[in-house]
C-alpha cells in the first residue's frame, strides 16, 4: 500500500499561528473547524435524543395505559395527538411511532456516530489539520440541523406528524386521504431529502480526507479501527443515501403533484417504494452499527491494554459487511408479495452477512482474553455493547430464516431485535465513546461515579424493557397497533405490556443522569490531561481540547494503532508517533 504524504513541511497551519481572532459567529455558529462542527452535531443530536426519547415514552404510555389521559401534560397537547380528555388517539399514536423511529435513526444515532465521531476523530486520528472540505463540512451540519427542524415542525401542522411509519410504505404514504396527514408526510419527504444531502456532503468529505490527508507513515493498515469503520460507512452512505433522497422526492411528487410512482390505482408500483427504501435501508442498518463497532473495538483495546485481536480480520469483516450489506435488502420483504424466489436468494445473502458479524464478535472476545481490564464507564458500555450485539445478532437469524419470518415478521420480535442492535448496540457504543472522548472534546473529565450509575441503570432497564418484547412478539403482537387489548389473542399480554412500559420509563429517567453529568462536567469536571487513558492514537498527543489546526507539527507515524503492553518497554503503551525503543519487541504482523 502506497503511503500518502499530506504535508511536505513540518510546519503546519496550526503551527504558523497566522490566523486572526475569529468573530463569535465564525467561531461557534458558522465554524469550519471539524472539532467545533462535531460538537455542534453532538449538542443538536443530544437535543433530538431527548425529543425521540419523549416520543418513545408516549408510545409506551399508550400501550400500557390505553385510553387514559396523559397526566399533567395531556390536555396541553394538540388535538391530532390526543382526545379532548388528553388520551392518545390511534392516529396520534401512529404519528408517535413514525416520528420516534425517524428521529432516532436520522437525527440521533446516524449524526451521533457519523456527524460527531466522524468529524471529531477522523482528522485527529490520521494526523490531519482538518477535513478536506471544511466549508462542505459546515454546510453538512447546517443542512442536517435544518432537516431536523423540518421533520419536527410537523408537530405544529393541524394534521400532525406523518403517520405512515418511518418506513413510509406507499401507497399509504403517497396519498394524504389515506394516511391522514398530507402536510406531515410532505414535511417528512422534504426533511429526509435535506438530511440526505447532509449525509452525502459528509460522506464525500470523509472519504477524501481519509484517502488524501493521512500523516506520513499512516498506512491504511495503521488506521485506528474507528477510522476504518467510518471510511466504510462513508462509502455506504455515498451509495445508499441518494437512493432514499430520490425516493423521497418521488413520494413528495406523488403526494402533492399527482404523479403516481407508487400508487397502484393509477398504475404505480407500491413495491417499488419498498425496494428503493430498503436498498437504502439495509446499508443504513450497517451505517448505524459499523462506526459503533469501530469505537467499541478501540475502547476494548485501550482498556484491556492489548492490541486488538485480529486487526486485519476486523477490517476485512467490516468490508465484507459493507459489500454484502447491499445485497440483503430483500430480507425486509419476504412477505411483501415479491417473487418467492427472491426471498430464497435474499435469505441466503442474509445468512452470509451473519458470518462477518460472528468474526467480529469472536475477535472482541479475543481482545479481552489475556488483557488487564480497567472498568471505566466507557469500558463498561463497550463491554456491554458486545453482549447486546450478540443478542441482537442472534435474534436476527430468526428473521433471516424465511419460514420463521412468516410468523414473526412485523411483530414485537422485530422491535426487540432492532432495539438490541440500535440501542443496546449503537447507543451503548455511543455512550461509551462520549465518556471516552469527552475529555478530548471539552478538556474536562466526566464524573465516573455517576457514569457508572448511568451505566448500571441503563443496562438493567434496557434489558427489562426490550427482552420481554421477544415474548410479546412470539405471542403474536403486531407492531404499530395502538391498542392491543382490542384483540382476543393479545388480552393476556397486558401485565407484560405494563411491565415493559414501566421499565421504559426507568430507562428514560436513567438517561437523564447522563445529561446532567454531561453538562455539569463541562464546567465543573476536573481538568483533563492530554492522555487520560494512556492511549496510543494521535489525538491523545495533543492538548485537551486540541487547538485550531490540530497538530503544531505534522506527526510521523511509526506504529500500528494498538501497541499496548509491548514486551520490553517501561510503559504499557507505544504511541503511534513514537518510534519503538530499542528494547521493545514489537511484533511484525
Amino acid at each position, binding site marked *: 500500500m502506497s503511503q500518502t504524504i499530506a504535508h511536505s513541511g513540518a510546519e503546519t497551519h496550526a503551527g504558523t499561528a497566522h490566523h486572526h481572532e475569529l468573530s463569535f459567529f465564525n467561531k461557534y455558529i458558522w465554524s469550519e473547524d471539524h472539532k467545533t462542527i462535531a460538537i455542534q452535531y453532538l449538542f443538536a443530536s443530544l437535543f433530538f435524543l431527548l425529543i425521540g426519547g419523549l416520543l418513545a415514552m408516549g408510545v409506551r404510555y399508550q400501550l400500557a395505559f390505553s385510553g387514559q389521559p396523559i397526566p399533567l401534560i395531556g390536555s396541553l397537547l394538540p388535538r391530532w395527538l390526543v382526545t379532548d380528555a388528553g388520551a392518545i388517539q*390511534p*392516529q396520534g*399514536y*401512529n404519528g408517535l411511532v413514525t416520528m420516534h423511529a425517524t428521529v432516532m435513526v436520522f437525527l440521533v444515532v446516524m449524526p451521533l456516530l457519523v456527524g460527531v465521531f466522524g468529524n471529531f476523530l477522523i482528522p485527529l486520528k490520521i494526523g490531519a489539520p482538518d477535513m478536506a472540505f471544511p466549508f462542505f463540512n459546515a454546510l453538512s451540519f447546517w443542512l442536517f440541523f435544518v432537516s431536523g427542524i423540518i421533520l419536527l415542525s410537523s408537530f405544529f401542522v393541524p394534521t400532525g406528524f406523518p403517520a*405512515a411509519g418511518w418506513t413510509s*410504505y406507499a*401507497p*399509504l404514504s403517497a396519498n394524504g386521504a*389515506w394516511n391522514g396527514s398530507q402536510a406531515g408526510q410532505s414535511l417528512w419527504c422534504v426533511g429526509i431529502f435535506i438530511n440526505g444531502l447532509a449525509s452525502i456532503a459528509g460522506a464525500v468529505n470523509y472519504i477524501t480526507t481519509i484517502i488524501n490527508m493521512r500523516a506520513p507513515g499512516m498506512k491504511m493498515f495503521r488506521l485506528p479501527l474507528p477510522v476504518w469503520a467510518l471510511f466504510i460507512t462513508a462509502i455506504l452512505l455515498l451509495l445508499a443515501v441518494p437512493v432514499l433522497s430520490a425516493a423521497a422526492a418521488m413520494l413528495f411528487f406523488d403526494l402533492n403533484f399527482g404523479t403516481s410512482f407508487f400508487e*397502484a*390505482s393509477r398504475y404505480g408500483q*407500491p*413495491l417499488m417504494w419498498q425496494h428503493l427504501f430498503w436498498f437504502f435501508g439495509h446499508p443504513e442498518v450497517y451505517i448505524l452499527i459499523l462506526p459503533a463497532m469501530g469505537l467499541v473495538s478501540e475502547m476494548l483495546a485501550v482498556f484491556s491494554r*492489548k*492490541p486488538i*485481536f*485480529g*486487526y486485519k480480520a476486523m477490517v476485512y469483516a467490516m468490508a465484507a459487511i459493507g459489500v454484502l450489506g447491499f445485497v440483503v435488502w430483500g430480507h425486509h420483504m419476504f*412477505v411483501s408479495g415479491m417473487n*418467492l424466489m427472491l426471498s*430464497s436468494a435474499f435469505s441466503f445473502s442474509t*445468512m*452470509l452477512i451473519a458470518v462477518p458479524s*460472528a*468474526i467480529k464478535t*469472536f475477535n472482541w*472476545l*479475543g481482545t*479481552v*482474553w*489475556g*488483557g*488487564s*481490564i*480497567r472498568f471505566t464507564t466507557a469500558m463498561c458500555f463497550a463491554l456491554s455493547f458486545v453482549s447486546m450485539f*450478540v443478542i441482537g445478532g442472534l435474534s436476527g437469524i430468526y428473521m433471516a*430464516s*424465511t*419460514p*420463521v419470518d412468516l*410468523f414473526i415478521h*412485523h*411483530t414485537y420480535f422485530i422491535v426487540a431485535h432492532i432495539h438490541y442492535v440500535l440501542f443496546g448496540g449503537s447507543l451503548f457504543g455511543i455512550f461509551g465513546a462520549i465518556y471516552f472522548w469527552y475529555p478530548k472534546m471539552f478538556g474536562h473529565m466526566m464524573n465516573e461515579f455517576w457514569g457508572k450509575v448511568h451505566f448500571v441503570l441503563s443496562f438493567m432497564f434496557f434489558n427489562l424493557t426490550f427482552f*420481554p418484547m421477544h*415474548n410479546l412478539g*412470539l*405471542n*403474536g403482537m*403486531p407492531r*404499530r*397497533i395502538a*391498542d392491543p387489548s*382490542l384483540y382476543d*389473542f393479545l388480552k393476556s*399480554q397486558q401485565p407484560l405490556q405494563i411491565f415493559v412500559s414501566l421499565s421504559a420509563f426507568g430507562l428514560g429517567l436513567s438517561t437523564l443522569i447522563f445529561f446532567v453529568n454531561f453538562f455539569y462536567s463541562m464546567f465543573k469536571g476536573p481538568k483533563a490531561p492530554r492522555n487520560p487513558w494512556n492511549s496510543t492514537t494521535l489525538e491523545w498527543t495533543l492538548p485537551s481540547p486540541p487547538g485550531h489546526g490540530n497538530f503544531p507539527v505534522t506527526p510521523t507515524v511509526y506504529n500500528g494503532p494498538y501497541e*499496548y*503492553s*509491548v514486551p520490553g518497554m517501561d510503559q*504499557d503503551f507505544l504511541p503511534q508517533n513514537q518510534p519503538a525503543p530499542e528494547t521493545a519487541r514489537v511484533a511484525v*504482523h
Partner: protein
Amino acid sequence: MSFWRSSFARCGLVLAILLVGLGTCWADPRTSNLWWMPENASEGGVYIDQLIYFILFLTGIVFVLTQIVYIFFIVKYRARKGVPATYSHGNNRLEIIWTAIPTAIFIGLWGYSNHLWWDVLHSTPPANSLQVGVAAYQFGFSFQYPGADGKLGKAEASFVSNDNMFGNDPSDPDAKDNFTSSVLEIPVNRPVHIRLDSKDVIHGFYIPQFRIYQDMVPGRMIDWVWFTPTKIGKFQLACSQLCGSGHYNMKADIEVVSQADFEKWYQEKAKAVQPQPGAKLTSVTETKDQ
C-alpha cells in the same frame, strides 16, 4: 491463584442466580403459553415451530457459550497489580476456524429454511383445497367463496374497484355465483387456498395461530398462500401492516368448524346467492369515514 478462584466463584454465583431467574421467567410463560407462541393450529405451523425451536436451541447454545467465555475473561483478566496483559495481535488459525464454522452452520440453516419455504409452505396447493378470496380495504376484510360450482373464477388486480373488491373477471362465468362473508369460515383439516388483494393501501393478512403472514398489496393478486387448519375454534385475523388511522382495530373473525358444520353453512350461503360478478360492499363507505 486463590484470588481469582474466589472471585470466579462469586461471578459464578451471580451467573447462576441470573440463569435461574431468567430460566424461571421463561419457563412460566413457556409452560402456560401465556407469553409464548400461541398454540399452533395449522399443518404448516408444525414445521415452522420445529424450525423455531431448532434456531432457539442453536442460538441459545451460542449465546450461553459466548457469554460464559466472555464473562469468564472479563473477571479473570481484570487489572491486577504486577500482571501485565498478554501481547498478542491474534491468531490466523483461529480466524479461519471461526469463519468456516459459522459459514457452514448458516448455509446449512439456509438449506433447512429454504426446503421448508419451497417444498412445504409454498408447494402447489392440493386439488381439494377450498378456494377463498380475501379482500382488504381501509379498515376491514371481506371474504369471497365460490358458489355451487366450487370455482372462484379468474381474477385480476386491474379489475379491483369499489364495486368489485375481489377483482373478479367480469367475463368469467365461474365467478357469477360467488358469495361473500364477513367472517372467514373454514373447515378443519381441509387445505384452504386464499387469493389476496387490497383495494387501497397495503394491509397484512396475519394469523399467529396458523403461523401465517402475507402482505396484501394493491395492484397485485397474491395466490400462493395456502394452509390447513387443524383445530376447531375461533381465531382472529389481524391486519399487521400499518394502514392508517383505523389500523389499530382492523381485524376479522375466523371460525374453524367441522367439515359437516362447514357444509351446512356453505349450502345455506350458496343457495341465497344472486349471481353477480364480485360483490358490492356497502360497508366500505361506512367504515372509511371513521
